[in-house]
């Protein structure tokens, strides 16, 4: 089996309100898979069903070949193989960073070295600080540390970089790539399109509890086939042209300028442009 996660026809509603309305998806082992969608689209419900926190109404779910809703005696051994970073936690925080991570490492049969984990998430300077003294971004890094300390085969990350400054986000992306290179499967939900583009092998866009499309970030919504916009400066004004074949058009332009085209740019729609269009169309 090279599927880490397999979902078929997943449905869930709360008090008659549909949250997840028939989702199918497969996450391959070793893959980084991102789920994108607006608030209330069903992302967190889907992920929490996969994590074993919520029961579903119907459909089939297998995470590491087990059904999270019916783990029975394998509950502990299954959780030993997964790592969860929840959306928001705010522990009372009377323990230090180091104490918390060391303690959690005892829950797992094959933990990473807690001191290495502290370094990995960049909390070395805060290791002896009480958790309640950490900033929002530092707390989030602690959440991530607790999610990975057990050397999980699958790591669930629910909006992991909320509250990070740009530098911390870059560092976090580096950490995620390190985990991927160690073979960890990662299921990520995020609001940041650049984050999905940077990290994900494949993305799923969901809205109103349904999957709109699953694709690589580069091909989502036919992005690779979409027309490019060429802009340049001519007669002291910016000119632009929508082009189906920018290479040809630029060669032609280059001829008219006898070489260098002033202030030339060629852009294709960003992942965000594509995403906004998809969500808009699905309303």
């Amino acid at each position: 089996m090279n599927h880490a996660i397999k979902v078929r026809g997943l449905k869930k509603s709360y008090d008659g309100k549909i949250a997840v309305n028939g989702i199918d998806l497969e996450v391959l082992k070793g893959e980084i898979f991102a789920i994108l969608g607006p608030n209330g689209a069903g992302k967190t419900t889907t992920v929490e069903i996969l994590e074993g926190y919520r029961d579903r109404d119907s459909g089939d779910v297998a995470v590491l070949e087990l059904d999270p809703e019916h783990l029975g005696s394998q509950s502990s051994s299954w959780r030993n193989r997964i790592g969860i970073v929840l959306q928001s936690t705010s522990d009372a925080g009377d323990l230090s960073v180091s104490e918390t991570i060391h303690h959690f490492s005892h829950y797992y049969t094959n933990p990473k070295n807690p001191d290495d984990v502290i370094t990995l998430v960049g909390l070395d300077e805060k290791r002896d600080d009480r958790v309640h003294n950490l900033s929002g971004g530092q707390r989030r890094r602690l959440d991530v540390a607790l999610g990975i300390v057990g050397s999980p085969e699958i790591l669930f990350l629910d909006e992991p970089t909320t509250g990070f400054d740009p530098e911390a986000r870059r560092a976090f992306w580096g950490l995620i790539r390190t985990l991927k290179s160690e073979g960890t499967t990662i299921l990520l939900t995020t609001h940041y399109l650049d984050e999905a583009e940077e990290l994900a092998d494949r993305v799923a866009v969901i809205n109103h509890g349904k999957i709109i499309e699953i694709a690589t970030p580069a091909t989502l919504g036919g992005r690779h086939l979409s027309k490019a916009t060429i802009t340049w400066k001519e007669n002291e004004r910016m000119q632009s042209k929508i082009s189906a074949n920018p290479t040809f058009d630029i060669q032609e332009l280059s001829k008219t300028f006898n070489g260098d085209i002033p202030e030339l740019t060629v852009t294709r729609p960003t992942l965000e442009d594509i995403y906004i269009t998809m969500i808009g169309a699905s309303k």
Partner: protein
Amino acid sequence: MNILRIGALRGGLEIKQFMRRRESVVFTLMFPVLLLFIFGSVFKNTIAPGVTFSQYFISGMVASGLVNTGFQQLAINIPMERDFGTLKRLRGTPMSPISFFIGKAILVFTAMLIQVFLLLLFGILFFHLHMPHSPALWLRFAWLVILGSASSTVLGIAFATVIKSGRGAAAVVSPIVIILQFLSGVFFVFSSLPSWMQKFASLFPLKWLTQGMRSVFLPDSFASQEVAHSWEIGRTALILVVWLVLGTILAARSFKWSDQ
């Protein structure tokens, strides 16, 4: 075995957190000692030959200590941990729920021992409290403490599930405990309470714990002053066991790791 080892680790962690939380140390440990000083200093009257009100009061406070450190502490802290997401995070790890409850029990037992020790120490030093003089009484004291603590712990865990939010927990739980203390003869002499109040209080464990503690710390002759003219030791044990079993079933059935 791993379940026990992690339970012990959690117990250590819970104690560490407890000691670092100033409000828990002050509220749970020091407040009863403070009450002892106030009541003990104000009411110096003798309520029966050789028994002062302060001795009567300390017996009740020792019983209350079991309720404070178990029921009150857990029924306030568990909803807060649920709100914070602490419980949800723990549920996502391989840690067994049994280890979690072992940790809580270790916390309660430790806080209870400190509480009882402080009350007895101050009772002996300032209010002429007499320690039990026979091994039989010490044995009775031991099982009252163990049964009382255990039922208080499971009832606290069970009650935590009916509390909606961590922020409001203290406002719900503290009045219940204080009212129970009034009804159960901690602040007043139980036999002087109206009979309907006595009957109502008899449904709950605290009344039996206070009476049991009086049987340990007051002279045996005082038994005749009790409502039943006896210490009712057998009945006390029975009622505590019933509450322990009931509390365990309720706690096991209703415990929620998150408020969804």
